[in-house]
């Protein structure tokens, strides 16, 4: 029972990581009707930047927000330079461009930082604490707390501020928003910036677990896809809940199903994607029949 509770907590922690990346995917999907295949790689590169900053002596809790800001700016830059020119084109063109971006960023990371895996510091100690009779690691709690905070901040930004309102309006109703004086194009850029920053949290949280190297996020993005699809690709809340569910499932499957371990957990992620798409394509919270053609 003890072990089960521990696995649950770990599952939620890793779920928080998936949820952050999934939320980034959902933000961009809502704004443009496309899945950003480069989201994971963008997070990875930002995490490398954080690594470089920490190596140069910056404290972890200072490097973290600095990296988020840099990621935010980078997200805006990418939208302006690479996405905007083909904004009005077919969605598949945009998807291919994000694939190109993913490849490019992966190569760039390899070029600048090399392929040797590095260990990334965690600000939380690896001790466990006794919580209600269950031994839970500080690390898991820390990840849950940080992910939770970030997700909450995004919620507040989008739902309770004017900027968030105009971003949502621009995403769902671009034409009507223009007639209200909203600078739709810049709102989309902001959306990309926000998504980039949120995704980066996922990278920074997972790096201490996985070892930092250019291919680090390749499996995480699959889990994030699963989370987004499970939650409903249009629903930010769905991304969070989907993330936690996927985290729990994958973790528990890895711990308790015979033969499932390490790399085969990824197949569980794939299975979730396929199952959802076949049985309930709109996910848990998605709306029916909003198929962006």
């Amino acid at each position, binding site marked *: 029972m003890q072990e089960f509770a521990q696995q649950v907590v770990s599952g939620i922690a890793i779920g928080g990581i998936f949820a952050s990346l999934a939320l980034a995917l959902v933000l961009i999907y809502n704004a443009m009707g496309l899945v950003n295949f480069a989201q994971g790689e963008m997070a990875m590169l930002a995490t490398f930047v954080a690594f470089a900053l920490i190596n140069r002596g910056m404290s972890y809790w200072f490097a973290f927000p600095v990296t988020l800001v840099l990621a935010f700016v980078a997200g805006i830059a990418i939208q302006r330079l690479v996405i905007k020119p083909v904004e009005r084109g077919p969605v598949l063109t945009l998807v291919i461009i994000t694939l190109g971006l993913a490849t490019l960023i992966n190569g760039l990371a390899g070029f600048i930082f090399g392929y040797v895996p590095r260990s990334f510091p965690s600000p939380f100690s690896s001790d466990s604490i006794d919580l209600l009779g269950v031994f839970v690691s500080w690390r898991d709690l820390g990840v849950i707390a940080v992910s939770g905070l970030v997700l909450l901040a995004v919620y507040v930004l989008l739902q309770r501020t004017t900027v968030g309102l105009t971003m949502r309006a621009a995403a769902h109703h671009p034409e*009507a*928003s223009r*007639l209200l*004086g909203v*600078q739709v194009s810049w709102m989309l850029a902001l959306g990309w910036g926000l998504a980039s920053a949120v995704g980066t949290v996922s990278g920074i949280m997972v790096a201490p677990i996985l070892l930092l190297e250019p291919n680090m996020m390749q499996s995480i993005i699959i889990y994030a896809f699963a989370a987004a699809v499970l939650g409903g690709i249009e629903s930010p809340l769905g991304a969070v809940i989907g993330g936690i569910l996927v985290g729990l499932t994958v973790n528990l499957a890895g711990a308790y199903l015979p033969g499932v371990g390490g790399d085969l957990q990824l197949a569980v992620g794939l299975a979730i994607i396929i199952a959802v798409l076949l049985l309930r394509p709109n996910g848990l919270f998605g709306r029916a029949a909003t198929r962006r053609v």
Partner: protein
Amino acid sequence: MVSNLLELKEVHAGYGPRAVLHGVSLTVPVGGIVSLLGANGAGKTTTLRTITAGVRWSGDILFAGRSLRRMSTEDVVRAGIAHVPEGRGICTELTVDENLRLGAHLRRDGAEVQKDYDRVFEYFPVLKERRKLSASTLSGGEQQMLALARAILMRPKLMLLDEPSLGLAPIVVRAIFEIIRAINETSGVAVLLVEQNARIALDLSSTAYVLEVGRVAVSGESAQLRGDESVRRSYLGY
């Protein structure tokens, strides 16, 4: 001191190679109400769209003396023109309150915004009731009210209204037009009104233009047009 708030000078506009407007000229005086009438397809909606840069155009459009050439839709709107399009443009993914907030989001004068909110809820109490609900739950008439309320909250210098009476019961139409008149009288907002319902439009506006196949066929004071039987019969259908 510019007496004409809006001036269209020989405007040609169209979608792609097809021109819809062939040299339309009209003016809206500061604080005035002008109606734009004509049959379906005459180019009334296109005229409004042209003003807010939704359509490619040539010629010139002056707003408060300033040319609108090469300005984007958002910038034209930010200059002080509110456009309630046909179809209302309601953001159905958002709540009623959020729609209203979008109307006011560019304004910096907090106290005045609050006054306008009060006014809007006075005119349209149903919006106050349904504040927290999704805008998609509103009926057609209520959505029209929301669109108008939103436009009021923008405190524009000029309002472009595209067929505000469309699909509404006569009693609602009368109420809305009374509100438009009230807004015009109290805040001095100029109105360019596109309408199928020529009778009620001519009652409200001081001058009118009648479009036919993309050109101004007749124009003049509303009172005169109202009285002219031949104009009414050939162009206005009553």
